[in-house]
């Protein structure tokens, strides 16, 4: 069965690489926000100030990091599922000998690998810049923690987005729901700015929610030098969220496919 999902990932990867316009869009999407944020925060924190405990160097790495995560982790499965449910494309997957959620997950893996390949040159330049400028000292253990956190972010993001996309089984048009979701999740995940910038009571709330694990937590692992104990505790909570989301995915899949059958034939 693993062979099947590897084949789906491969097809997804090839599709991205075959589409030249998506390559250009991807490069622009990754580069422009990173460069803008780099100059903006370099200017704001030019005189040694800190914001939310972040120095200039840390905040620059933070923004490069969240954009990196945005490119490699955040796959728009919710938008895709919404389209596939309403266009009826989902039927093409239902009658294939493959589990729907695993099919989309394998597709995401291929798509993200394509991103990784395409953005590798920029990524290498970014890493070299950080190393040459000596902006960050990291141990091997932190690097491993970071790599694991990124993978967990991808899994958690997929499960969460899959649940949101499945709402399309029950509603005709998710366009505005998905737009609002995007803004809220970007805010609560720390994509716009580090969560520590928010008022303390809001920080407390965000720490109880799963969204911090989408981007804030992996970057904090890299930038803030979290203790192993703190990292393990957070990773445990992240895994618990993943289990909860997985159970919800199974429920919405079962109920949703029944619903699809009732109204979207």
């Amino acid at each position, binding site marked *: 069965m693993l062979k099947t999902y590897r084949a789906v990932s491969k097809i997804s990867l090839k*599709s991205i690489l*075959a589409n030249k316009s998506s390559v250009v869009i991807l490069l622009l999407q990754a580069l422009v926000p990173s460069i803008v944020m780099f100059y903006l925060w370099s200017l704001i924190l030019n005189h040694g100030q800190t914001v939310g405990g972040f120095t200039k160097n840390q905040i620059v790495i933070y923004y490069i990091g969240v954009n990196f995560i945005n490119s490699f982790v955040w796959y728009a499965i919710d938008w895709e599922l919404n389209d596939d449910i309403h266009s009826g494309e989902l039927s093409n997957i239902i009658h*294939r000998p493959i589990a729907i959620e695993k099919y989309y997950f394998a597709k995401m893996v291929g798509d993200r690998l394509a991103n990784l390949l395409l953005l590798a040159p920029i990524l290498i330049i970014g890493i070299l810049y950080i190393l040459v400028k000596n902006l960050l000292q990291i141990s091997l253990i932190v690097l491993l923690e970071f790599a694991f956190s990124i993978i967990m972010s991808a899994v958690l993001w997929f499960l969460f987005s899959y649940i949101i996309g499945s709402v399309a089984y029950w509603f005709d048009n998710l366009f505005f729901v998905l737009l609002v979701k995007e803004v809220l999740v970007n805010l609560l995940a720390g994509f716009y700015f580090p969560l520590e910038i928010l008022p303390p009571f809001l920080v407390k709330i965000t720490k109880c929610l799963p969204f911090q694990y989408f981007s804030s937590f992996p970057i904090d692992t890299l930038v803030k030098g979290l203790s192993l104990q703190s990292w393990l505790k957070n990773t445990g909570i992240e895994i618990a969220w993943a289990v909860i989301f997985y159970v919800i995915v199974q429920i919405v899949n079962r109920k949703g496919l029944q619903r699809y059958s009732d109204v979207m034939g």
Partner: protein
Amino acid sequence: MGENAIEVHDLSKKYVVATRGETWHAIAKNIFKPERTVVNAVKSLNFTIKPGEKVGFIGQNGAGKTTTIKMLTGTLFPSSGYCRVNGFDPTKRTNDFKKSISVVMGNRSQLFPDLTPRDYLKLLQSMYDISETSFQETVNNLARVLNVTRKLDTQTRKLSLGERMKIEFLAGVATRPKVLFLDEPTIGLDVLAKRDIRKFLLQLNKEEKLTVFLTSHDMEDIATICDRLIIANHGEIMWNGQKQDLLDKFSSNKYITFDKSETFAEKNIEGKIINQDDLTITIKVPNEEVDDMIAFLAKNKQGSNYQINELKLEDIILELFAEENQKC
């Protein structure tokens, strides 16, 4: 697997459809209390199909053809009744069931536009867990029959509609299904592509005993491919039997088509008028009265250019629908 490839018992499907008014009041009301209507797409269908049969499932738009295919393939759950395909309950959606069937829909492509057909076929090979050598051999043979060997490595979006459909067919049967469901498979295709696909299906049915369940508005598809017909109207079956029996039932009549003359008057026509416009008319006449009828029409200068035709399958089906609608 039982004796039958497909068994359908009291199969029904109701859809819940949201309806919306046009006034502001209706729109506001709809937010809090959406109005829903229940549509009976399929009403208590019963039929069985034996392995190797080629069955045409015919009906007007909204007759429930696609809904029935979707229930048989496990995409939709029946509202009541049940069906078995290759001995499996489609609602369980088991992988063994999915591997035993294939679906080709003329109005929905399953190919990946940015990739080549070969990429798609390789994915199917992995999904259906077929050995590479055997799969390649099947694909090459089928591609040769369908005349698309050189198209297997062309980007799908660069293929013509006919070529894409042939690839869909190829992909549909390359996984070696026992039952092939075809929903409007030749829609929009040219005569040559249709001919190739029909030949291909007949050959495959003969060699592999593949069961074919076909819906199409193109009666040439049905007439060429199918031995048996199931005709549905408003979700109910109105004919279930051999194609030849249906043709025989209507073989005692012929159609006379002629150009109307200036002195043409409808009151002079004794046969049943099937179709007419300003210039031509078609009437149905019993076989033994054809010569007399033409002589009568000619003598009374009702028209010219008389043509006598056997009733084609399309004519018969139209007559069946007309009869049924009169009963309603």
